[in-house]
């Protein structure tokens, strides 16, 4: 009976997913059945405790703020002007807006530590623009979710910090080590975007190059928009405000610019802005609430630990170990948000890695990239749910479009896994290894 209920909820979960039960409800139902029927389980009331847990973490608090800011950026004309500028910069390239999406996530990496927040914002900001320029919705969502893998790897990143609290590696070393892998992912994704865009004829949006005069006008027009990331960078770098507050300030700023400078934001928009932000936030946070409940069951049954212990037993080659860790984390990361998986698994895996003589900074970066890729990958990645939720993308379309990107991300992961020199270059240069 106990044995049965250790695994049955996972089976139930999959069945429910395929019955078109909304993802959040499916997780809640599977967890509830466990709580009610397993002889091992905790008091069922604790499910409710887990459901509100995500809403009391300052990390997740940034989600509604950046979601809301993204909505207002759209209504106030800021996004549009940035797109015009981007169009002038890279519009003549094949797959131009896809490149913008990827580069923007890299830049956002310096501001935000969360792949989900980045996905949420760019799903609001960029996906509609990409669709307008002829990209398929699913492809736009996939580029957004894939490029969001860069954001937590470029410091600051939540998973980088969680790893260093669980191992003995300093956060500074983890941060130095994050830059180059982040840039590697960016370059890889841009090459892939170029290739696919070329094949599909995702045409440049302009045939002629812009005149300096046109470009100057667009630049001037977009200067208020360009100040947003600068403002956020400055504010965060100098500790003036936190990411959540940066979201709040972006909201205020976007309102002021939209209403008084671009004069596109009207009172009539308020209701639509609030409702759009509310429903987008609720959709994402409800899934997180379900995931928190589900992970309570998984943690309670020690399932992630059991799986990894079973696999690790009997492996003695560091290369085989790294390869298996990659596979393991991709699988486990599907069920957890990256942070939770890191907290659970790092204490377990780090001693094994250490005993095999693997550099712990390198190992940490491999773990972090793994967990963010798991967030991108179907069928349960959190970035996937976020972008599909916000953009109303069908998940089966997403899955189809995600395959080449999955291949590219796993390719980078394997290169970074087996050539530690790339990860260690910057920490070595800065003497932090």
């Amino acid at each position, binding site marked *: *009976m106990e*044995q*049965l209920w250790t695994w049955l909820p996972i089976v139930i979960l999959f069945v429910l997913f395929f019955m078109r039960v909304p993802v959040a409800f499916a997780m809640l139902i599977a967890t509830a059945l466990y709580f009610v029927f397993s*002889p091992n389980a*905790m*008091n069922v*009331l*604790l499910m409710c*405790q*887990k459901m509100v*847990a995500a809403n*009391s*973490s*300052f*990390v997740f608090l940034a989600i509604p703020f950046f979601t809301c800011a993204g909505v207002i950026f759209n209504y106030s004309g800021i996004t549009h002007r940035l797109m015009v500028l981007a169009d002038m910069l890279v519009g003549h390239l094949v797959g131009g807006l896809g490149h913008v999406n990827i580069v923007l996530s890299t830049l956002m990496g310096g501001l935000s*530590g969360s792949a989900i927040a980045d996905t949420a914002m760019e799903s609001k900001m960029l996906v509609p623009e990409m669709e307008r320029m002829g990209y398929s919705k699913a492809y736009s969502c996939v580029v957004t979710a894939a490029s969001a893998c860069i954001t937590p790897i470029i410091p*600051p990143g*939540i998973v980088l*910090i969680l790893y*260093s*609290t*669980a*191992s*003995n590696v*300093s*956060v*500074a070393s983890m941060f130095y080590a994050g830059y180059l892998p982040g840039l590697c992912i960016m370059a890889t994704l841009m090459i892939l975007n170029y290739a696919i865009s070329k094949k599909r004829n995702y045409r440049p949006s302009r045939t002629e190059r812009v005149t300096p005069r046109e470009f100057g006008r667009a630049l001037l027009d977009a200067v208020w928009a360009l100040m947003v990331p600068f403002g956020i960078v400055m504010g*965060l770098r100098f*500790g*003036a*405000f*936190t*990411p*959540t507050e940066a979201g709040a300030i972006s909201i205020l700023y976007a309102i002021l610019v939209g209403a008084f400078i671009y004069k596109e934001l009207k009172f009539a928009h308020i209701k639509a802005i609030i409702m759009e932000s509310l429903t987008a936030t609720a959709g994402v946070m409800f899934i997180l609430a379900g995931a928190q409940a589900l992970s*309570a069951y998984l*943690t*309670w049954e*020690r399932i992630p630990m*059991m799986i990894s212990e*079973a696999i690790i037993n009997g492996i003695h080659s560091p290369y085989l170990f790294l390869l298996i860790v990659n596979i393991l984390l991709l699988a486990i990361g599907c069920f957890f948000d990256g942070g*939770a998986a890191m*907290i*659970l698994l790092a*204490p377990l895996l780090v001693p094994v890695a250490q005993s095999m003589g693997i550099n712990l900074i390198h190992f940490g970066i491999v773990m972090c990239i793994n967990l963010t890729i798991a967030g991108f990958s179907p069928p349960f990645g959190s970035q996937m749910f976020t972008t599909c939720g916000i953009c109303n993308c069908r998940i089966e379309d997403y899955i189809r479009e995600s395959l080449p990107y999955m291949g590219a991300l796993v390719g980078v992961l394997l290169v970074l896994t087996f050539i530690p020199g790339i990860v260690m270059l910057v920490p070595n240069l800065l003497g932090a290894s």
Partner: protein
Amino acid sequence: ACGGGTDSNANPGGENPGGGQSAAAEATTLKFNLVKSNTDPQYEWYGRFFDDLEAASNGEIVGEIYTTESLGPTADVIEQAALGERVVADCDLAWLANYVPDMAAIMSPYLIQKPEEIMAIWNSEVFQDMCTELEAQGLHLIALNYEGTRNLLTKKDITSRADVNGLKIRCASTTMWNAVAEMLGGNPTNIAMSETYQALSQGVADAAEGVYSVMYSNKWNEVLSHVIETEHLVGYTAIVMSSEVYSTLSDAAKAAMDETAQKYMQEFLELSGGVQDEYKQKLIDAGVQVSSIDKTEFIEAAKSIPDKFPDWTPGVYDELTAVLEEARGNK
């Protein structure tokens, strides 16, 4: 234990402990939600504690340690215990004030002055009454383990209480911790331990307080640079479980738990005392500036703290003071 498919088909009635005739009671597995990480010295100590406990109880009590509060935030785990779960919380008395308000009084800054004074409190009638009240709320206090003396950790040097003004001091989300942050002169900001490093590096908080080993093992020294020896609190962690689960243990297991806990309470006094100097040195070696400060202003500010707690039993603070005075006088 990983079972094969045949095990899942086993008749659950066959495992019914009521039918068994063996003398050994069924093992109770307690999941311990350690707030500290696995690099903290306490991780190893608690590992030994649970090993000893398992041996002393003849295998009736088994402990599993979950580091970095991976079972959930402290408040949630205490609540789980109160609801009858087999979890053990690593908290402090300020958290338990949600169940017995008077317990926060023991956390008053500058009340306890020496680590071993906790034994006087532990054995006092006023404290035992609080524990009885706590049992009625569903919680059983196993031990109060000494952790070290708590100091302030900031980004800049502090020479007077006025310098703390405006600093957002990370603290646990309890009324007493907020009062402590205010006593130190700053604004409290409530953040879970597991999110504190990130909060400090992002400016969500710009100061923290705690014992040296916690500062070091959480790497707060990478984002903060100055320890100010305010010595505002002699810190103890309360080890708490469900009173319902405790009552289901056999008498032998209860005795084993009480004895092992008492033994380790003594051991923590020595272990934590020794290790704090070592971690202070580690912080200094890592480039942290440790400076002492005239505590008069803080002690003065601490005097008004009891006024902020109208829900305390009248006179409880004075009673605790009397217990401590007596203990000091007897020495």
